[in-house]
């Protein structure tokens, strides 16, 4: 068995926004603090350190997770995408564009998490994962109507109350309704 160091530091190697990163960090470090304090990726935000606000949402191996509830050292070899990695070069992600055009934020602090979460929503709906409000559990794809988006985005709090804009932006990016 590979025994972790008894000291409090460990080397962590992971891929962030397509780039291999290797860093020695305290074993107590959350993925969020690793990104923000060690890798200089401050796009992911700390709103509660508790998994209750969603501002730290990133994509780990393609799935949206709360980076504050992820222990960095448990993510050896993980593929992490943060808000800084959503655009394709200079071309913004369709969700980024839709967020700007629908005024889906005000102060902007929850926005990186909302965006990463929304990327997760589109992928999950395309896979046909039902939500609490999905009526037809047998359908192949999920139609992202407003109720579905609201439910699926409820892990991301926006105290400015930009929810109507967020829902509109995701609907727009989802192609007007159906993601398959």
């Amino acid at each position, binding site marked *: 068995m590979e025994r972790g160091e008894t000291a409090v530091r460990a080397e962590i190697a992971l891929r962030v926004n397509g780039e291999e990163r290797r860093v020695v960090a305290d074993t107590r470090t959350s993925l969020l603090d690793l990104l923000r304090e060690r890798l200089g990726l401050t796009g992911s935000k700390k709103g509660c350190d508790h998994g209750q606000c969603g501002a730290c949402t990133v994509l780990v191996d393609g799935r949206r997770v709360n980076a504050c509830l992820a222990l960095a050292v448990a993510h050896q070899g993980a593929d992490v995408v943060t808000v800084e990695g959503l655009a394709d070069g200079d071309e913004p992600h369709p969700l980024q564009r839709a967020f700007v055009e629908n005024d889906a934020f005000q102060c902007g602090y929850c926005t990186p998490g909302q965006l990463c979460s929304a990327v997760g929503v589109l992928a999950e709906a395309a896979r046909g994962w039902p939500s609490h409000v999905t009526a037809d559990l047998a359908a192949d794809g999920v139609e992202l109507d407003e109720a579905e988006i609201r439910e699926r985005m409820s892990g991301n*709090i926006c*105290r400015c109350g930009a929810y109507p804009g967020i829902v509109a932006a995701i609907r727009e990016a989802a192609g007007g309704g159906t993601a398959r």
Partner: protein
Amino acid sequence: MELGAPLDRVEGWDKVAGRARYSGEQRVAGVCHAVAVQAEIAHGEVLAVDATAARAVPGVIDVLAYGDAPALADTSDFELAVLQSPRVAYRGQIVAAVVAETLEIARHAQRLVRVTYDELGHDVELTPDHPGLYRPEKISPDDPPDTGEGEETPAEVSVDVTYETPAFHNNPMEPHATLAVWEGDHLTLYDSTQGAAAQRDALAALLGMPAERVRVVAHHVGGGFGSKGVPPRPNSVLAALCARRVGRPVKLAVTRQQMFSITGYRTPTFQRMRIGASKDGRIADIEHHVIEQTSTAREFAEQSGVVTRMMYAARARRTTHRLARLDVPVNSWMRAPGECPGMYALESAMDELAEACGIDPVELRIRNEPERDPDSGNPFSSRRLVECLRLGAERFGWSSRPEPGTRREGRHLVGMGVAAATYPAAARPAQALARVADDGSFTVSIAAADIGTGARTALTQIAADALGVPVARVRVEIGDSALPYGPLAGGSMGNASWGWAVLRACEGLRDGIARYGGAEPGLECRADTSGEIKNQEAYARHSFGAQFAEVRVDVDSGEIRVPRMLGVFAAGRVMNARLARSQFVGGMVMGLGMALTEESRMDREFGDYLNHDLAQYHVPVNADVLGIDAIWLDDPDPHANPLGGKGIGEIGIVGAAAAIGNAVHNATGHRFRRLPISPPSVIPHLP
């Protein structure tokens, strides 16, 4: 014409790309981390702070505590006199701080700091008959606590009821964070604040330094809702002290839990409303008696009764404010302090009066329109409440409102409610500099703050409009105390104050360019609006609005959902239609939380707010916000300021909770007079 256009937020791309740096996110070499140690008693004195174990942790740089901390020059405000005395005035007060190489080490060592106390008994619970109730000298911002005029006369119809609101916490998404950097005897503070210049002045005074040697930077602020106002919160002071002590840049990020004790909140209230009226609903006498709390650390008297001084016509009116000084965290501003809780009470009572008179609540308000401001006697600069009410009633389908407790759809009771809204429209003196840049574009500078309001965008539009150039040629610099003085973002005065100065600076520059015969790089114009503001004509300046809500109450579980809300506002000229809508709707969403889910529960035994995290303090989530919309009248107010705008940051929350509460009454037939209206409180009163 750039003014009013629905321009995208100018910093929008930075925000969606994760490039916008908030306080504490700046890259500074040699930064270390501080964590606050908080008092575990609500009242008493610190006897000793034993930091031996904490200091022994490798990576710990220093521990600060009373008796072992840099001195402050001004300790008159106890809340900000951090580590300057052994006194503990509330649970959660900062009593020590650990500075360490990393956040993990600092947090670990924080647990090892042993603080012993001489504990005195505490009193943390506001009650309507608290023996310590007293009349403050003034209420915020600078008004008399009590007013009274006219003789009480016997009324045909009367309402005499008391409403209760709990403590609410602002909870902006960005927890307060500070990065303090000393360079020689100069301090730079990257701080989440609603006013860089005011913050600089306050900190310079505390530290006993000339203001020129302090700079406060806040390019992006993740919401504030009053909690990042000035005077500063103690965390900013602590960061400066820690950095001075260790001689290195220090980052101090307040945790969400700590925010419940050190970054302010809205006082709980008991508000007694007495209204006497004729049978046709004309108010004869109106009284509003407010009971609130304040901390022993600093007095803050929230002005909840002021709305009753100006809202409706009456022959006699009386308002009072009484406070209980408790061993509680320092309450302060939260979105629309005064107007928000005050209008909940007044507009709920108006609904009760409408019912008692058998008059439609929209009509009742129209009947009580005053001709002049009853408080000052001045004319209103503009007052278009009646239009808001009528337009809203039409758009919302108000005529289909059922009789109370009569509309049932499946397992839901359905009802509609209305409430009026108002908020003062003031402006404060500001300075701005407009300059032709080297490339012929324009730079406009002012120490304004964009805490999510859209100020940066609106000021860009104001400048472009005044200069007569496209917005793409204007760059607005804000969020830095080194820029020309701008007041803080508060009281919905930001855009009026900053915009006025920007307008004057740009007008001046445009004239200068005309005189010079071209936009020569380096041409500039500085404006200061203090003279103009001092000489403003005597008008009562307020925004107005009407809030409508529809609720569905589950008859079995008592769960309440709000399928529709509509706000109609007359708030002066709107500078950017898209961003304005976001502001109005955002305020209404916060009002929805106030009405149904938010409440900070005081733990009587320990003296702190029990539900101090976002798992237990329920702000609305996406699934709670269904059909909320806001519209407004085209309402430039030439008497408000040269831009005709009145401020829109706060009026959206005003009246929202009353509209929902009134709708719950309409749905159930029962009047709930305590917020939030929760399932447990509703259940016993359902059919």
